[in-house]
């Protein structure tokens, strides 16, 4: 069976959608179709991919307008006669065809203070309990596909990349702040530099996460609460005022 695809071709200056038709087989995913287009029609069609199993987060694109991993999106999720549109991630600049420039994200990660772990126990081990690590293990499932960054209104619609670090890095921060053995305090930075207040909890990031991480409820909201506790809790405010603690 042949299927039709509309693929965005171009670079940062200009581009257009080009239609291709290729034969598809049972069980194929969108990335398979892109590869077939490369082999048969356009060997210079640029796309990022690696593991082809939803574990590396390389093949993020927008399929019929929805941010998805091309390797985990089955063709039979769409009607047989439907032309499938594939285009690059919108919230970041285009490099070529389906490839976007994610370098901003790599810069953000460098701004985050890394783990500051307390000293090991005398026997050379660290001790943590499963129930205590489970909630950060959820955040550490993140494959850095940046689909959450793509749909975040603050980054995508308002382009306030200078104000908000985005959902991916909010959960990176959460994984550090909630680490049982971490001794650093990132709450001031989360409030001032990383813009926790910018998120208005629409949960779009959670909806697109291929790892099903509860980004908003388990990550961002608890961080917002910690900011509130530190800066706006009247009891704490009074306490700090009296004892001149910061």
């Amino acid at each position: 069976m042949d299927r039709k695809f509309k693929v965005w071709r171009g670079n940062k200056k200009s581009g257009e959608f080009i239609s291709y038709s290729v034969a598809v087989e049972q069980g194929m995913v969108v990335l398979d179709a892109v590869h077939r287009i490369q082999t048969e029609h356009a060997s210079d069609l640029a796309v990022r991919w690696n593991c082809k199993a939803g574990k590396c987060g390389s093949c993020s694109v927008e399929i019929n307008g929805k941010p998805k991993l091309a390797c985990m999106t089955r063709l039979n999720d769409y009607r047989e006669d439907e032309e499938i549109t594939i285009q690059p991630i919108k919230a970041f600049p285009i490099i070529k065809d389906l490839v976007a420039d994610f370098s901003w994200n790599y810069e953000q990660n460098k701004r985050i203070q890394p783990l500051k772990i307390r000293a090991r126990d005398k026997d050379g081990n660290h001790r943590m309990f499963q129930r205590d690590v489970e909630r950060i293990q959820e955040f550490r499932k993140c494959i850095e596909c940046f689909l959450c960054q793509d749909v975040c209104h603050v980054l995508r619609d308002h382009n306030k990349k200078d104000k908000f670090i985005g959902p991916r890095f909010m959960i990176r921060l959460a994984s550090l702040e909630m680490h049982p053995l971490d001794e650093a305090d990132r709450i001031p930075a989360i409030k001032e530099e990383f813009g926790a207040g910018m998120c208005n909890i629409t949960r779009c990031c959670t909806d697109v996460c291929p790892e099903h991480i509860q980004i908003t409820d388990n990550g961002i909201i608890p961080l917002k609460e910690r900011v509130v506790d530190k800066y706006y809790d009247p009891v704490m405010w009074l306490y700090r005022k009296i004892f001149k603690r910061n």
Partner: protein
Amino acid sequence: MDFSDIQTVEHDVLVVGAGGAGIRAAVECAQNGLNTGMISKSLLGKAHTVMAEGGVAAAMGNVDSRDNWKIHFRDTMRGGKFLNQWRMAELHAKQAPERVRELEEWGAVFDRTENGLINQRNFGGHRYPRLAHVGDRTGLEILRTLQDFCIHKGIHTHMECTGLDLVLDNGRVAGLVGYWRETGRFILFKAKAVIFATGGGGKAWRITSNSWEYSGDGLGMAYRAGAELIDMEFTQFHPTGMVWPPSVRGILVTEGVRGDGGILKNSDGKRFMFDYIPKIFASETADTVEEANLWLSGDRDARRPPELLTRDVVARAIKAEVEAGRGSPNGGVFLDIASQQSAEFIKRKLPSMYHQFKELAVIDITEVPMEVGPTLHYFMGGIRVDSNSQETNIPGLFACGECAGGMHGANRLGGNSLSDLLVFGKLAGDGVTNYINNLSNKPQINNLKIKEIITSATDILNRDEGINPFVLHEKLQETMQKYVGIVRTGDELQLGLEKLEKIKEDVGRVYAHASPQYNPGWNEALDLKNLMVTAEAVTKAAFLREESRGAHTRLDFEGESEEGMKYNVVIRNTSSGMVAEKRHREEPPKELSDIAFATLSELEGESSGS
């Protein structure tokens, strides 16, 4: 083009590859005060290390205190059919626990025991629960930890930058020429030393768990520069890859499924692995379902189920069942954990397997068995290195991780690759530091060589017509799949070599149109050169080894030969082309052979670590 105008960057050391081994090596170099550059074909954090699922092997003894480095070493040597480099296996077993603890220090969050220590799970060929893990996404945890750690170490990371070839000065490393994927422009790295951490070359086969990056770049570049390759005949077919749907054929199903109780059944519903227990493991393997079940329920005296035999044994057993007509509908066998564990347990311990099957095959593994079959997974062989320094026979060229050979011998145990890349990544960093500190004068760059490398790359774009690189790659994959598979014969290997010769000629005529900017056709064409070296090396080495040992099975030479233990096959680049030859193995150090051939009770209960 004036080649003296090429973009030039200078580092003390350039690490090629940013998977686990590459980043660990770069971290060590940077911590030792070297100006360290690192290039990766993909973006940082996307390397194939993320596909390692089950865990990292280290004899910490957290779950069973009888474990120690000697038993890990013994397991590794036995798994490798005693063809491993003894000293590498020793260093690996001794240093793995500290490398794992160090990762925890850097942010890795492993699953915990009830006492709050790093939990360890059972795996094929490991006597005790030894694999530190995070569900079934251990590789991602390790890669992300290294990534997040390395960005604060002052390492110069160049992403989506691919190595083309080394530049030597009087036989020692002077630098490397590469290109940027985004612009297609060339770049010269001047470096006193280069570390290859480029992974294997599984993309030479059709059914493989490897991604496009696995094109044997390090093997090809090292070989062309004159470095020797070793043990190339030993290619690991992981017993359990997905077989359906066709487009995902080969994608890995972690051994953790069997480690956590999964069993293998044929179309008669028979648990067939009991029929395939080799003599060497008979005394340590359960021979009844009852005993296997006791082991799963935690009975310390019960022996291990036969599903956890080494990968070569299980892969061959699956192939035999399928060929005997007892396979599953799509040409595999059944891997069943649904009947062995609760849905809740499976979702907690094997979450990404659950999702992988749910989303790609529309199958719920908590209810029905998976269909699985062997998939090309890992290269035991690779660039020959010194066991202590990881230096190759080219001064200044080092290798670590999958692209280096010797550590695993004829077969690798699951979990020993993540520990390998940590242990030898660090040692390579130390080896380089030592090399650079003893370097008396700086190597000089030869402009002619740069011109040669660049011209060879741009020729592909400048032809008016030629062969489609994607189609040629498929042809190569079919050839290797057919003639250099799990079970080999001399005749087929010979025939395979003839086919490869033809493909090699075609590689010289590949053509990619359009500009070099982010051009997958051109990128593929460049990779083909290295895939060819890889494929030819594996086939020639496989032809030379006339016995069956570990992952290398010759139908025309059944069983291990006595002579086979006395040599390694070495591949060399000579004026008359690629040569495979037998290199005599030195006698093992007595203290190590005593451990490898000891009984378990002689080794149990000794203190762990080095």
